[in-house]
């Protein structure tokens, strides 16, 4: 790894000050993507600012409408916390399917969302669950947050502090893992709200997470195999695009079935 200066602070304002005072600085949360990227020389920051010890990024609470999760909350905490289990069980399940046990002890929800890996799990949950991404300067709706391949609406130096998820009436996440990495070859998250509002978000299939409108209509109707047509469907050595689309259709059917069986 390149040489860099490591900074740790319990104060979010101080973390931001260190960021603005230094050239080529990066925020570090769990490090499960950033550190491997640095080992490969893909990113070579001069300063790393550790966010994991800032108390306000660790909250986990609920209100009538929302489940509120601090950005530095680890996957394992989301997977096992009774509040998540009771408010949005599919989210606890999703977190339990990320990486492996050791990775879940380090990786964080905020880090995952800020990275926006096209095959990561959390973006699907955030988009389906109408997440409000609370940062140090504003609130960004999930619909505006994810802007494509590894990119988000976050500005330079902007820090996610909390993720507010709208509690659904019912929801389900079904994922088909890429066998070696455990990332989603495809993952489908369905969230059902009052007044027949349905949101279906898909990860792993295209250049970034997206809402699948045909599936949302299909959920309310009787059709079980919605069309999926996009020009950015991933095709790689793990799966050609037609296979990914087919898997997404199968996962949608399974997730929809889970929700309907659960009524």
């Amino acid at each position, binding site marked *: 790894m*390149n040489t860099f200066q490591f900074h740790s602070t319990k104060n979010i304002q101080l973390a931001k000050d260190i960021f603005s005072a230094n050239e080529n600085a990066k925020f570090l949360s769990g490090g499960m993507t950033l550190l491997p990227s640095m080992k490969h020389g893909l990113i070579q920051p001069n300063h790393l600012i550790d966010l994991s010890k800032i108390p306000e990024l660790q909250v986990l609470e609920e209100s009538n409408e929302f489940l509120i999760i601090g950005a530095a909350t680890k996957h394992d905490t989301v997977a096992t916390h009774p509040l998540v289990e009771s408010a949005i069980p599919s989210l606890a399940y999703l977190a339990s399917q990320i990486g492996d046990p*050791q990775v879940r*002890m380090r990786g964080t929800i905020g880090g995952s969302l800020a990275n926006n890996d096209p095959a990561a799990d959390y973006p699907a949950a955030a988009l389906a669950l109408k997440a409000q991404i609370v940062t140090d300067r504003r609130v960004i709706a999930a619909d505006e947050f994810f802007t494509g391949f590894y990119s988000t609406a976050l500005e330079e130096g902007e820090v996610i502090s909390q993720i507010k998820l709208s509690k659904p009436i019912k929801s389900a996440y079904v994922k088909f893992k890429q066998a070696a990495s455990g990332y989603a070859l495809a993952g489908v998250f369905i969230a059902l709200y009052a007044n027949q509002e349905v949101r279906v978000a898909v990860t792993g299939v295209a250049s970034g997470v997206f809402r699948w409108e045909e599936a949302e209509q299909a959920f309310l109707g009787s059709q079980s195999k919605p069309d999926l047509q996009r020009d950015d469907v991933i095709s790689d050595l793990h799966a050609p695009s037609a296979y990914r689309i087919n898997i997404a259709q199968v996962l949608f059917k399974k997730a929809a079935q889970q929700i309907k069986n659960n009524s």
Partner: protein
Amino acid sequence: MQLTINGQIKDLAVQDNMLLIEVIRDQLQLTGTHNGCDTTQCGCCTVLMDQVAVKSCTILARQAEGSSIQTIEGLAGSQLHPVQEAFSQEHGLQCGYCTPGMIMSTVYLLQRYPNPTDDQIKEGLAGNICRCTGYVNIIKAVQSAAKKIQEAKV
């Protein structure tokens, strides 16, 4: 910076870009923790950090500042730890390279699930790869270790 390693407090001079595994192996000379893939996949470098299993190849030493680390060397007292004993008796290893990581993950797994089901064992060891593919005996070893720990409590 300060680190508690196998119960002993150490004051260490580390460079900011050093990994926890580099401090454990190169500075502290605790070479039981193995560096297998260096890419967070194989789990050979697993140690307990504040009592949870983590991969020491993907943590900066500075991120571990002030924490308490337990490595494979810290398990045995005058006798082998029950998990070590079980891996030995059940032949839960072939070449042995993955074993320290397997054992540390098992110690954590059994703290969480004292009577694990087969699925909990497989899920609990999903972050540890045995390239000799000796998984059948590894699972037996975990079951046996669970029994040993339960019996010792009675």
